Protein backbone atom coordinates (compact mmCIF):
# COMPACT_ATOMS: atom_id res chain seq x y z
CA UNK A 1 0.00 0.00 0.00
CA UNK A 2 1.93 3.03 -1.22
CA UNK A 3 -0.61 5.39 0.33
CA UNK A 4 0.80 4.87 3.81
CA UNK A 5 4.43 5.31 2.87
CA UNK A 6 3.62 8.31 0.67
CA UNK A 7 1.74 9.93 3.54
CA UNK A 8 4.66 9.25 5.83
CA UNK A 9 7.16 10.90 3.50
CA UNK A 10 4.92 13.90 2.94
CA UNK A 11 4.50 14.21 6.70
CA UNK A 12 8.24 13.95 7.17
CA UNK A 13 8.84 16.69 4.64
CA UNK A 14 6.56 19.08 6.52
CA UNK A 15 8.12 18.25 9.85
CA UNK A 16 11.57 18.98 8.44
CA UNK A 17 10.35 22.27 7.05
CA UNK A 18 8.84 23.14 10.39
CA UNK A 19 11.92 22.54 12.51
CA UNK A 20 14.07 24.33 9.95
CA UNK A 21 12.06 27.50 10.33
CA UNK A 22 12.54 28.11 14.04
CA UNK A 23 11.33 31.68 13.73
CA UNK A 24 7.97 30.50 12.48
CA UNK A 25 7.92 27.95 15.26
CA UNK A 26 8.75 30.59 17.83
CA UNK A 27 6.16 33.10 16.71
CA UNK A 28 3.41 30.59 16.42
CA UNK A 29 3.99 29.79 20.09
CA UNK A 30 4.56 33.35 21.14
CA UNK A 31 0.94 34.42 21.10
CA UNK A 32 -0.48 31.64 23.26
CA UNK A 33 2.34 32.07 25.73
CA UNK A 34 1.63 35.78 25.95
CA UNK A 35 -2.03 34.94 26.42
CA UNK A 36 -1.23 32.45 29.11
CA UNK A 37 1.03 34.82 31.01
CA UNK A 38 -0.82 38.11 30.46
CA UNK A 39 -4.48 37.17 30.23
CA UNK A 40 -4.38 35.07 33.31
CA UNK A 41 -2.79 37.98 35.20
CA UNK A 42 -5.00 40.66 33.68
CA UNK A 43 -8.21 38.78 34.24
CA UNK A 44 -7.33 37.10 37.50
CA UNK A 45 -10.06 39.09 39.23
CA UNK A 46 -12.57 37.44 36.89
CA UNK A 47 -11.64 34.31 38.71
CA UNK A 48 -13.06 35.85 41.86
CA UNK A 49 -16.25 36.78 40.01
CA UNK A 50 -16.49 33.32 38.49
CA UNK A 51 -15.53 31.66 41.69
CA UNK A 52 -12.61 29.79 40.12
CA UNK A 53 -8.87 30.03 39.74
CA UNK A 54 -8.73 31.96 36.45
CA UNK A 55 -5.44 30.44 35.31
CA UNK A 56 -6.97 27.01 35.73
CA UNK A 57 -10.08 28.21 33.94
CA UNK A 58 -8.35 29.88 30.98
CA UNK A 59 -5.80 27.19 30.17
CA UNK A 60 -8.30 25.21 28.11
CA UNK A 61 -9.25 28.35 26.18
CA UNK A 62 -5.67 29.28 25.44
CA UNK A 63 -4.80 25.79 24.28
CA UNK A 64 -7.74 25.93 21.90
CA UNK A 65 -6.98 29.44 20.72
CA UNK A 66 -3.51 28.30 19.79
CA UNK A 67 -4.86 25.31 17.90
CA UNK A 68 -7.27 27.58 16.09
CA UNK A 69 -4.73 30.11 14.84
CA UNK A 70 -2.05 27.50 14.24
CA UNK A 71 -4.36 25.61 11.90
CA UNK A 72 -4.35 28.52 9.50
CA UNK A 73 -0.70 27.96 8.68
CA UNK A 74 -1.78 24.94 6.70
CA UNK A 75 -3.49 26.99 4.03
CA UNK A 76 -0.56 29.31 3.55
CA UNK A 77 1.80 26.35 3.25
CA UNK A 78 -0.25 24.81 0.46
CA UNK A 79 -0.39 28.17 -1.31
CA UNK A 80 3.42 28.24 -1.20
CA UNK A 81 3.53 24.79 -2.75
CA UNK A 82 1.14 25.76 -5.51
CA UNK A 83 2.99 28.96 -6.32
CA UNK A 84 6.45 27.43 -6.28
CA UNK A 85 5.30 24.55 -8.47
CA UNK A 86 6.27 21.99 -5.87
CA UNK A 87 2.74 20.64 -5.73
CA UNK A 88 2.89 20.07 -9.49
CA UNK A 89 6.23 18.35 -9.08
CA UNK A 90 4.73 15.93 -6.59
CA UNK A 91 1.66 15.45 -8.74
CA UNK A 92 3.90 14.39 -11.61
CA UNK A 93 5.09 11.45 -9.52
CA UNK A 94 2.91 8.41 -8.86
CA UNK A 95 2.51 9.48 -5.21
CA UNK A 96 -1.02 8.90 -3.97
CA UNK A 97 -3.02 12.11 -4.31
CA UNK A 98 -4.70 11.70 -0.95
CA UNK A 99 -1.35 11.30 0.78
CA UNK A 100 -0.47 14.84 -0.20
CA UNK A 101 -3.33 16.24 1.86
CA UNK A 102 -3.14 13.72 4.64
CA UNK A 103 0.59 14.19 5.11
CA UNK A 104 0.01 17.90 5.55
CA UNK A 105 -2.94 17.45 7.91
CA UNK A 106 -1.06 14.98 10.08
CA UNK A 107 1.83 17.39 10.36
CA UNK A 108 -0.64 20.07 11.43
CA UNK A 109 -2.08 17.79 14.06
CA UNK A 110 1.39 16.92 15.26
CA UNK A 111 2.43 20.56 15.46
CA UNK A 112 -0.62 21.49 17.49
CA UNK A 113 0.03 18.51 19.71
CA UNK A 114 3.56 19.72 20.43
CA UNK A 115 2.53 23.34 20.90
CA UNK A 116 -0.23 22.35 23.27
CA UNK A 117 2.19 20.25 25.25
CA UNK A 118 4.44 23.26 25.70
CA UNK A 119 1.51 25.41 26.81
CA UNK A 120 0.40 22.76 29.28
CA UNK A 121 3.90 22.49 30.71
CA UNK A 122 4.03 26.25 31.17
CA UNK A 123 0.61 26.17 32.75
CA UNK A 124 1.88 23.44 35.04
CA UNK A 125 4.50 25.93 36.15
CA UNK A 126 1.63 28.28 36.98
CA UNK A 127 -0.01 25.61 39.06
CA UNK A 128 -2.33 24.00 36.52
CA UNK A 129 -2.56 20.25 36.81
CA UNK A 130 -5.53 18.40 35.30
CA UNK A 131 -7.98 16.80 37.67
CA UNK A 132 -7.73 13.75 35.44
CA UNK A 133 -3.95 13.44 35.85
CA UNK A 134 -1.58 12.04 33.24
CA UNK A 135 -4.31 10.31 31.26
CA UNK A 136 -6.05 13.68 31.22
CA UNK A 137 -2.99 15.24 29.59
CA UNK A 138 -3.08 12.64 26.89
CA UNK A 139 -6.80 13.10 26.29
CA UNK A 140 -6.40 16.87 26.15
CA UNK A 141 -3.58 16.67 23.63
CA UNK A 142 -5.41 14.17 21.44
CA UNK A 143 -8.56 16.27 21.51
CA UNK A 144 -6.70 19.45 20.62
CA UNK A 145 -4.81 17.71 17.83
CA UNK A 146 -8.09 16.40 16.42
CA UNK A 147 -9.56 19.89 16.65
CA UNK A 148 -6.49 21.33 14.92
CA UNK A 149 -6.74 18.78 12.14
CA UNK A 150 -10.39 19.61 11.58
CA UNK A 151 -9.73 23.36 11.45
CA UNK A 152 -6.74 22.91 9.17
CA UNK A 153 -9.22 21.70 6.62
CA UNK A 154 -10.77 25.17 6.47
CA UNK A 155 -7.49 26.89 5.83
CA UNK A 156 -6.42 24.24 3.32
CA UNK A 157 -9.67 24.63 1.41
CA UNK A 158 -9.30 28.42 1.49
CA UNK A 159 -5.70 28.21 0.34
CA UNK A 160 -6.56 25.85 -2.50
CA UNK A 161 -9.48 27.99 -3.54
CA UNK A 162 -7.96 31.48 -3.32
CA UNK A 163 -4.31 30.53 -3.94
CA UNK A 164 -3.44 33.56 -1.86
CA UNK A 165 -1.66 33.44 1.47
CA UNK A 166 -2.79 36.98 2.24
CA UNK A 167 -6.41 35.97 1.92
CA UNK A 168 -5.96 33.01 4.23
CA UNK A 169 -4.18 35.21 6.76
CA UNK A 170 -6.79 37.91 6.42
CA UNK A 171 -9.65 35.54 7.03
CA UNK A 172 -7.81 33.90 9.90
CA UNK A 173 -7.12 37.27 11.51
CA UNK A 174 -10.71 38.36 11.13
CA UNK A 175 -12.16 35.16 12.50
CA UNK A 176 -9.86 34.49 15.42
CA UNK A 177 -10.91 37.09 17.92
CA UNK A 178 -14.68 37.16 17.38
CA UNK A 179 -14.82 33.38 17.51
CA UNK A 180 -12.55 33.26 20.51
CA UNK A 181 -14.32 35.94 22.51
CA UNK A 182 -17.76 34.66 21.61
CA UNK A 183 -16.93 31.29 23.07
CA UNK A 184 -16.40 29.93 26.53
CA UNK A 185 -12.64 30.05 25.99
CA UNK A 186 -11.95 32.96 28.31
CA UNK A 187 -15.27 33.66 29.96
CA UNK A 188 -18.19 31.87 31.50
CA UNK A 189 -21.45 32.39 29.59
CA UNK A 190 -23.15 33.76 32.68
CA UNK A 191 -21.07 36.92 32.42
CA UNK A 192 -21.87 37.49 28.73
CA UNK A 193 -24.72 39.50 27.24
CA UNK A 194 -27.59 37.24 26.25
CA UNK A 195 -27.01 37.38 22.49
CA UNK A 196 -23.41 36.43 23.00
CA UNK A 197 -24.42 33.57 25.22
CA UNK A 198 -26.49 32.27 22.35
CA UNK A 199 -23.62 32.56 19.90
CA UNK A 200 -21.26 31.01 22.36
CA UNK A 201 -23.58 28.06 22.87
CA UNK A 202 -23.26 27.13 19.20
CA UNK A 203 -19.65 28.15 18.75
CA UNK A 204 -17.65 25.02 17.95
CA UNK A 205 -14.74 26.37 19.96
CA UNK A 206 -16.95 26.33 23.06
CA UNK A 207 -17.60 22.62 22.71
CA UNK A 208 -13.93 21.77 22.48
CA UNK A 209 -13.07 24.20 25.29
CA UNK A 210 -15.73 22.77 27.59
CA UNK A 211 -14.49 19.23 27.13
CA UNK A 212 -10.91 20.18 27.83
CA UNK A 213 -11.85 22.44 30.71
CA UNK A 214 -13.75 19.61 32.33
CA UNK A 215 -10.72 17.36 31.99
CA UNK A 216 -8.63 20.04 33.70
CA UNK A 217 -11.03 21.30 36.37
CA UNK A 218 -13.59 18.62 37.02
CA UNK A 219 -12.71 15.16 35.82
CA UNK A 220 -14.22 12.85 33.24
CA UNK A 221 -17.49 14.37 32.06
CA UNK A 222 -18.93 12.09 29.42
CA UNK A 223 -21.43 14.65 28.26
CA UNK A 224 -19.03 17.43 27.33
CA UNK A 225 -16.52 14.96 25.96
CA UNK A 226 -18.92 13.24 23.58
CA UNK A 227 -20.43 16.54 22.47
CA UNK A 228 -16.99 17.90 21.68
CA UNK A 229 -16.10 14.87 19.60
CA UNK A 230 -19.43 15.04 17.83
CA UNK A 231 -18.91 18.68 16.91
CA UNK A 232 -15.27 18.29 15.93
CA UNK A 233 -16.10 15.26 13.78
CA UNK A 234 -18.77 17.25 12.04
CA UNK A 235 -16.35 20.09 11.37
CA UNK A 236 -13.78 17.63 10.13
CA UNK A 237 -16.22 16.08 7.68
CA UNK A 238 -17.25 19.48 6.37
CA UNK A 239 -13.83 21.05 6.12
CA UNK A 240 -12.08 17.99 4.75
CA UNK A 241 -14.89 17.56 2.26
CA UNK A 242 -14.37 21.15 1.12
CA UNK A 243 -10.63 20.57 0.96
CA UNK A 244 -11.02 17.46 -1.17
CA UNK A 245 -13.42 19.29 -3.45
CA UNK A 246 -10.99 22.20 -3.94
CA UNK A 247 -8.03 19.85 -4.28
CA UNK A 248 -9.73 17.97 -7.10
CA UNK A 249 -10.13 21.24 -8.97
CA UNK A 250 -6.47 22.14 -8.54
CA UNK A 251 -5.26 18.68 -9.48
CA UNK A 252 -7.27 18.32 -12.65
Amino acid at each position, binding site marked *: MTFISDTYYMFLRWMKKLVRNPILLFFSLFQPIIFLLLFTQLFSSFGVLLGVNYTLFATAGIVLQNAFSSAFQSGTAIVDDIKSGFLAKILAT*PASRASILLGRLLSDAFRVFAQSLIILLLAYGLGVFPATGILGYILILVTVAFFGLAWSGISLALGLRTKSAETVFGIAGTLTFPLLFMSTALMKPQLMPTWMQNVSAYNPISFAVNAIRDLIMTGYVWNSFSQAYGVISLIAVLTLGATLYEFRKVVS
Partner: protein
Amino acid sequence: MPAVQVENLVKTYGDGTQAVKGISFKVDEGEFFGFLGPNGAGKSTTIKILTTLLRKTSGLANVAGHDIEHDPQKVRKLIGVQMQDTVIDEDLTGRENLTLQGHLHQMHGEELKERVNTLLKIVDLENAADKRSAYYSGGMKKRLDLASTLVHRPKILFLDEPTTGLDPQSRATVWSYLKELNQEGITIFITTQYLEEVDRLCRRLAILDHGEIVAQGSPSDLKSEIGADRITLGFENGNPGAGALKDKAKQVLSNLGGITEVVDSDEGIVIYVKNGGFLVPDIVRAFDGAGIKLASIGVSSPTLDDVFLKHTGRRIRPEEIDKSRASGMFGRRRR
Protein backbone atom coordinates in the same frame (compact mmCIF):
# COMPACT_ATOMS: atom_id res chain seq x y z
CA MET B 1 5.66 1.68 -30.04
CA PRO B 2 6.19 5.44 -30.02
CA ALA B 3 7.24 7.08 -26.76
CA VAL B 4 4.85 9.94 -27.31
CA GLN B 5 1.94 9.98 -29.68
CA VAL B 6 -0.32 12.99 -29.92
CA GLU B 7 -3.35 13.38 -32.13
CA ASN B 8 -5.39 16.54 -32.53
CA LEU B 9 -4.49 17.70 -29.08
CA VAL B 10 -6.42 20.80 -28.04
CA LYS B 11 -6.14 22.90 -24.91
CA THR B 12 -8.39 25.84 -24.27
CA TYR B 13 -7.86 27.45 -20.89
CA GLY B 14 -10.73 28.51 -18.68
CA ASP B 15 -10.37 32.13 -19.78
CA GLY B 16 -10.82 31.12 -23.42
CA THR B 17 -7.14 31.20 -24.39
CA GLN B 18 -6.55 28.62 -27.10
CA ALA B 19 -3.06 27.58 -26.13
CA VAL B 20 -2.92 24.42 -28.23
CA LYS B 21 -5.05 24.13 -31.34
CA GLY B 22 -5.14 20.54 -32.48
CA ILE B 23 -1.56 19.40 -32.79
CA SER B 24 -0.40 15.94 -33.89
CA PHE B 25 3.07 14.50 -33.65
CA LYS B 26 4.97 11.40 -32.71
CA VAL B 27 8.18 10.84 -30.83
CA ASP B 28 9.87 7.47 -31.27
CA GLU B 29 11.36 5.54 -28.44
CA GLY B 30 14.94 6.60 -27.82
CA GLU B 31 14.56 9.80 -29.77
CA PHE B 32 16.03 13.18 -28.82
CA PHE B 33 13.12 15.40 -29.73
CA GLY B 34 13.18 19.19 -29.79
CA PHE B 35 9.97 21.07 -29.23
CA LEU B 36 10.55 24.66 -30.26
CA GLY B 37 8.48 27.76 -30.55
CA PRO B 38 8.35 31.43 -29.66
CA ASN B 39 7.12 32.65 -26.27
CA GLY B 40 3.49 31.77 -25.71
CA ALA B 41 3.41 29.18 -28.49
CA GLY B 42 2.00 26.53 -26.16
CA LYS B 43 5.11 24.48 -25.39
CA SER B 44 4.74 24.42 -21.63
CA THR B 45 1.03 23.79 -21.95
CA THR B 46 1.72 20.74 -24.10
CA ILE B 47 4.31 19.44 -21.67
CA LYS B 48 1.94 19.86 -18.74
CA ILE B 49 -0.71 17.87 -20.56
CA LEU B 50 1.67 15.09 -21.57
CA THR B 51 2.94 14.82 -18.00
CA THR B 52 -0.61 14.52 -16.60
CA LEU B 53 -0.49 17.87 -14.82
CA LEU B 54 -3.11 19.55 -16.94
CA ARG B 55 -6.27 18.17 -18.43
CA LYS B 56 -6.53 18.37 -22.20
CA THR B 57 -9.62 19.85 -23.81
CA SER B 58 -9.78 17.23 -26.55
CA GLY B 59 -7.64 14.94 -28.67
CA LEU B 60 -5.59 11.88 -27.89
CA ALA B 61 -2.25 11.51 -26.20
CA ASN B 62 -0.27 8.41 -25.39
CA VAL B 63 2.89 8.58 -23.36
CA ALA B 64 5.08 5.52 -22.85
CA GLY B 65 2.30 3.44 -24.31
CA HIS B 66 -0.38 4.60 -21.89
CA ASP B 67 -3.27 6.93 -22.43
CA ILE B 68 -2.61 10.03 -20.31
CA GLU B 69 -6.22 10.33 -19.30
CA HIS B 70 -7.07 6.71 -18.57
CA ASP B 71 -3.77 5.57 -17.14
CA PRO B 72 -2.07 8.61 -15.64
CA GLN B 73 -0.48 6.59 -12.83
CA LYS B 74 1.31 4.31 -15.29
CA VAL B 75 2.52 7.35 -17.22
CA ARG B 76 3.83 9.01 -14.05
CA LYS B 77 5.91 5.98 -13.16
CA LEU B 78 7.73 6.09 -16.48
CA ILE B 79 8.39 9.79 -16.98
CA GLY B 80 10.56 12.46 -15.45
CA VAL B 81 9.54 16.11 -15.67
CA GLN B 82 11.50 19.29 -15.29
CA MET B 83 9.30 22.34 -15.35
CA GLN B 84 10.30 25.67 -16.84
CA ASP B 85 10.62 27.33 -13.44
CA THR B 86 13.07 25.65 -11.12
CA VAL B 87 11.20 23.66 -8.51
CA ILE B 88 12.96 22.32 -5.45
CA ASP B 89 12.10 22.43 -1.77
CA GLU B 90 14.49 25.04 -0.48
CA ASP B 91 14.06 23.99 3.14
CA LEU B 92 15.51 20.61 2.27
CA THR B 93 19.08 19.78 1.36
CA GLY B 94 20.00 18.65 -2.12
CA ARG B 95 20.24 15.07 -0.93
CA GLU B 96 16.85 15.26 0.79
CA ASN B 97 15.22 16.66 -2.31
CA LEU B 98 16.47 13.74 -4.37
CA THR B 99 15.63 11.20 -1.71
CA LEU B 100 12.06 12.48 -1.44
CA GLN B 101 11.61 12.04 -5.19
CA GLY B 102 12.91 8.51 -4.87
CA HIS B 103 10.57 7.74 -2.00
CA LEU B 104 7.59 8.99 -3.95
CA HIS B 105 8.63 6.61 -6.70
CA GLN B 106 8.76 3.70 -4.28
CA MET B 107 12.52 3.51 -4.08
CA HIS B 108 14.06 2.73 -0.72
CA GLY B 109 17.14 1.78 1.24
CA GLU B 110 20.59 1.22 -0.19
CA GLU B 111 19.46 1.30 -3.78
CA LEU B 112 18.04 4.77 -3.34
CA LYS B 113 21.04 5.98 -1.38
CA GLU B 114 23.41 4.90 -4.10
CA ARG B 115 21.26 6.34 -6.83
CA VAL B 116 21.14 9.70 -5.04
CA ASN B 117 24.91 9.70 -4.58
CA THR B 118 25.48 8.94 -8.23
CA LEU B 119 23.19 11.75 -9.33
CA LEU B 120 24.75 14.23 -6.93
CA LYS B 121 28.10 13.40 -8.48
CA ILE B 122 26.79 13.74 -12.02
CA VAL B 123 25.31 17.18 -11.47
CA ASP B 124 28.37 18.23 -9.51
CA LEU B 125 26.61 18.87 -6.22
CA GLU B 126 28.48 16.37 -4.05
CA ASN B 127 30.07 19.08 -1.94
CA ALA B 128 26.82 20.91 -1.37
CA ALA B 129 24.70 17.79 -0.98
CA ASP B 130 23.94 18.33 2.68
CA LYS B 131 23.52 22.06 2.54
CA ARG B 132 20.05 23.55 2.47
CA SER B 133 19.19 24.14 -1.15
CA ALA B 134 17.97 27.66 -0.31
CA TYR B 135 21.65 28.56 -0.21
CA TYR B 136 22.38 27.11 -3.66
CA SER B 137 23.10 29.41 -6.58
CA GLY B 138 20.55 29.59 -9.38
CA GLY B 139 22.56 27.21 -11.53
CA MET B 140 22.97 24.71 -8.69
CA LYS B 141 19.23 24.76 -8.08
CA LYS B 142 18.57 24.11 -11.74
CA ARG B 143 20.98 21.18 -11.74
CA LEU B 144 19.41 19.77 -8.60
CA ASP B 145 16.02 20.08 -10.25
CA LEU B 146 17.26 18.15 -13.25
CA ALA B 147 18.77 15.46 -11.04
CA SER B 148 15.50 15.12 -9.15
CA THR B 149 13.71 14.15 -12.36
CA LEU B 150 16.15 11.30 -12.93
CA VAL B 151 16.10 9.50 -9.59
CA HIS B 152 13.68 6.78 -10.67
CA ARG B 153 15.37 6.19 -14.03
CA PRO B 154 12.52 7.43 -16.20
CA LYS B 155 12.04 6.09 -19.70
CA ILE B 156 11.00 9.47 -21.05
CA LEU B 157 12.30 12.82 -19.88
CA PHE B 158 10.29 15.98 -20.41
CA LEU B 159 12.47 19.04 -20.05
CA ASP B 160 11.12 22.56 -20.29
CA GLU B 161 14.10 24.81 -20.94
CA PRO B 162 16.50 22.93 -18.70
CA THR B 163 19.56 25.03 -19.52
CA THR B 164 18.10 28.51 -19.43
CA GLY B 165 19.89 30.53 -16.78
CA LEU B 166 22.95 28.31 -16.64
CA ASP B 167 26.42 29.62 -17.37
CA PRO B 168 27.95 28.36 -20.62
CA GLN B 169 30.02 25.75 -18.86
CA SER B 170 27.15 24.20 -16.87
CA ARG B 171 25.04 24.42 -19.97
CA ALA B 172 27.56 22.39 -21.93
CA THR B 173 27.77 19.87 -19.08
CA VAL B 174 24.01 19.45 -18.97
CA TRP B 175 23.75 19.02 -22.72
CA SER B 176 26.48 16.42 -22.79
CA TYR B 177 24.81 14.62 -19.92
CA LEU B 178 21.50 14.66 -21.76
CA LYS B 179 23.31 13.20 -24.73
CA GLU B 180 24.62 10.40 -22.56
CA LEU B 181 21.19 9.72 -21.13
CA ASN B 182 19.82 9.55 -24.63
CA GLN B 183 22.54 7.12 -25.65
CA GLU B 184 21.50 4.92 -22.74
CA GLY B 185 18.10 4.75 -24.38
CA ILE B 186 16.12 7.43 -22.58
CA THR B 187 13.75 9.35 -24.80
CA ILE B 188 14.20 13.09 -24.44
CA PHE B 189 11.52 15.63 -25.13
CA ILE B 190 12.97 19.09 -24.72
CA THR B 191 12.02 22.70 -25.22
CA THR B 192 14.89 25.14 -25.41
CA GLN B 193 16.11 28.37 -26.87
CA TYR B 194 19.49 26.96 -27.79
CA LEU B 195 19.21 26.11 -31.44
CA GLU B 196 22.84 25.19 -31.91
CA GLU B 197 22.49 22.40 -29.38
CA VAL B 198 19.22 21.35 -30.94
CA ASP B 199 20.96 21.15 -34.28
CA ARG B 200 23.72 19.04 -32.81
CA LEU B 201 21.69 16.70 -30.63
CA CYS B 202 18.06 16.49 -31.68
CA ARG B 203 17.22 13.76 -34.11
CA ARG B 204 13.93 15.42 -34.90
CA LEU B 205 12.10 18.54 -33.89
CA ALA B 206 8.78 20.27 -34.17
CA ILE B 207 8.15 23.98 -34.28
CA LEU B 208 5.06 25.25 -32.58
CA ASP B 209 3.61 28.68 -33.24
CA HIS B 210 0.37 30.07 -31.85
CA GLY B 211 -0.66 26.61 -30.73
CA GLU B 212 -0.06 24.96 -34.07
CA ILE B 213 2.77 22.87 -35.42
CA VAL B 214 4.21 24.78 -38.33
CA ALA B 215 7.10 22.46 -39.15
CA GLN B 216 8.54 19.14 -38.11
CA GLY B 217 11.36 16.93 -39.25
CA SER B 218 15.07 16.39 -38.76
CA PRO B 219 17.27 19.47 -38.44
CA SER B 220 19.03 18.72 -41.72
CA ASP B 221 15.78 18.19 -43.62
CA LEU B 222 14.34 21.39 -42.26
CA LYS B 223 17.46 23.31 -43.14
CA SER B 224 17.66 21.95 -46.65
CA GLU B 225 13.98 22.76 -47.14
CA ILE B 226 15.05 26.35 -47.02
CA GLY B 227 17.32 25.49 -49.93
CA ALA B 228 19.06 28.80 -49.97
CA ASP B 229 21.61 30.98 -48.30
CA ARG B 230 20.59 33.74 -46.00
CA ILE B 231 21.48 37.35 -46.56
CA THR B 232 20.83 39.63 -43.62
CA LEU B 233 20.47 43.31 -44.34
CA GLY B 234 20.78 45.81 -41.53
CA PHE B 235 19.82 49.43 -42.02
CA GLU B 236 21.02 52.68 -40.64
CA ASN B 237 18.70 55.02 -38.79
CA GLY B 238 18.11 52.22 -36.34
CA ASN B 239 16.04 49.43 -37.73
CA PRO B 240 13.83 50.22 -40.66
CA GLY B 241 10.95 48.81 -38.62
CA ALA B 242 8.91 51.83 -39.55
CA GLY B 243 7.45 50.59 -42.80
CA ALA B 244 8.53 53.12 -45.41
CA LEU B 245 12.22 52.28 -45.63
CA LYS B 246 11.55 48.57 -45.47
CA ASP B 247 8.95 48.77 -48.17
CA LYS B 248 11.27 50.73 -50.37
CA ALA B 249 14.01 48.19 -49.81
CA LYS B 250 11.67 45.34 -50.68
CA GLN B 251 10.65 47.16 -53.81
CA VAL B 252 14.26 47.37 -54.85
CA LEU B 253 14.85 43.71 -54.02
CA SER B 254 11.90 42.56 -56.07
CA ASN B 255 13.72 43.76 -59.17
CA LEU B 256 16.63 41.46 -58.47
CA GLY B 257 16.55 37.89 -59.74
CA GLY B 258 16.98 34.59 -57.87
CA ILE B 259 15.47 35.59 -54.52
CA THR B 260 13.38 32.81 -52.98
CA GLU B 261 11.95 34.68 -50.08
CA VAL B 262 12.11 38.00 -48.29
CA VAL B 263 11.32 37.98 -44.57
CA ASP B 264 11.13 40.80 -42.06
CA SER B 265 13.18 40.22 -38.96
CA ASP B 266 14.01 42.14 -35.85
CA GLU B 267 17.30 43.34 -37.34
CA GLY B 268 16.09 44.34 -40.74
CA ILE B 269 15.39 42.16 -43.72
CA VAL B 270 16.41 38.59 -44.37
CA ILE B 271 16.62 37.33 -47.93
CA TYR B 272 16.84 33.68 -48.92
CA VAL B 273 18.59 33.10 -52.17
CA LYS B 274 20.60 30.40 -53.94
CA ASN B 275 24.30 31.24 -54.08
CA GLY B 276 23.94 34.27 -51.86
CA GLY B 277 27.52 35.41 -52.24
CA PHE B 278 26.99 36.32 -55.87
CA LEU B 279 24.00 38.51 -55.20
CA VAL B 280 25.68 40.75 -52.64
CA PRO B 281 27.30 43.14 -55.13
CA ASP B 282 24.00 43.49 -56.96
CA ILE B 283 22.16 44.32 -53.77
CA VAL B 284 24.71 46.89 -52.73
CA ARG B 285 24.61 48.55 -56.14
CA ALA B 286 20.83 48.58 -56.30
CA PHE B 287 20.47 50.05 -52.83
CA ASP B 288 23.09 52.67 -53.62
CA GLY B 289 21.10 53.63 -56.67
CA ALA B 290 17.90 53.89 -54.66
CA GLY B 291 19.58 55.89 -51.93
CA ILE B 292 18.98 53.33 -49.20
CA LYS B 293 21.71 53.30 -46.60
CA LEU B 294 22.82 49.86 -45.51
CA ALA B 295 24.52 49.44 -42.17
CA SER B 296 25.51 45.83 -42.61
CA ILE B 297 25.17 42.88 -44.87
CA GLY B 298 25.89 39.27 -44.00
CA VAL B 299 25.70 35.93 -45.79
CA SER B 300 25.43 32.52 -44.24
CA SER B 301 24.23 29.06 -45.09
CA PRO B 302 20.92 28.22 -43.47
CA THR B 303 20.79 27.34 -39.79
CA LEU B 304 17.95 26.29 -37.53
CA ASP B 305 17.60 29.97 -36.83
CA ASP B 306 16.50 30.45 -40.40
CA VAL B 307 14.14 27.53 -40.16
CA PHE B 308 12.67 29.08 -37.04
CA LEU B 309 12.44 32.52 -38.58
CA LYS B 310 10.90 31.22 -41.75
CA HIS B 311 8.13 29.36 -39.95
CA THR B 312 7.39 31.76 -37.13
CA GLY B 313 8.54 35.10 -38.49
CA ARG B 314 10.49 35.57 -35.31
CA ARG B 315 14.00 35.16 -34.03
CA ILE B 316 14.18 32.85 -31.09
CA ARG B 317 16.28 35.11 -28.91
CA PRO B 318 17.86 38.35 -30.01
CA GLU B 319 20.96 38.22 -27.82
CA GLU B 320 21.82 34.76 -29.10
CA ILE B 321 21.51 35.89 -32.67
CA ASP B 322 23.89 38.78 -32.20
CA LYS B 323 26.70 36.32 -31.72
CA SER B 324 25.92 34.18 -34.72
CA ARG B 325 25.41 37.20 -36.90
CA ALA B 326 28.78 38.56 -35.98
CA SER B 327 30.43 35.37 -37.12
CA GLY B 328 28.46 35.17 -40.36
CA MET B 329 29.27 38.69 -41.40
CA PHE B 330 31.68 39.29 -44.14
CA GLY B 331 31.15 42.88 -45.01
CA ARG B 332 30.09 45.98 -43.23
CA ARG B 333 29.52 49.16 -45.11
CA ARG B 334 29.22 52.54 -43.63
CA ARG B 335 29.09 55.87 -45.28
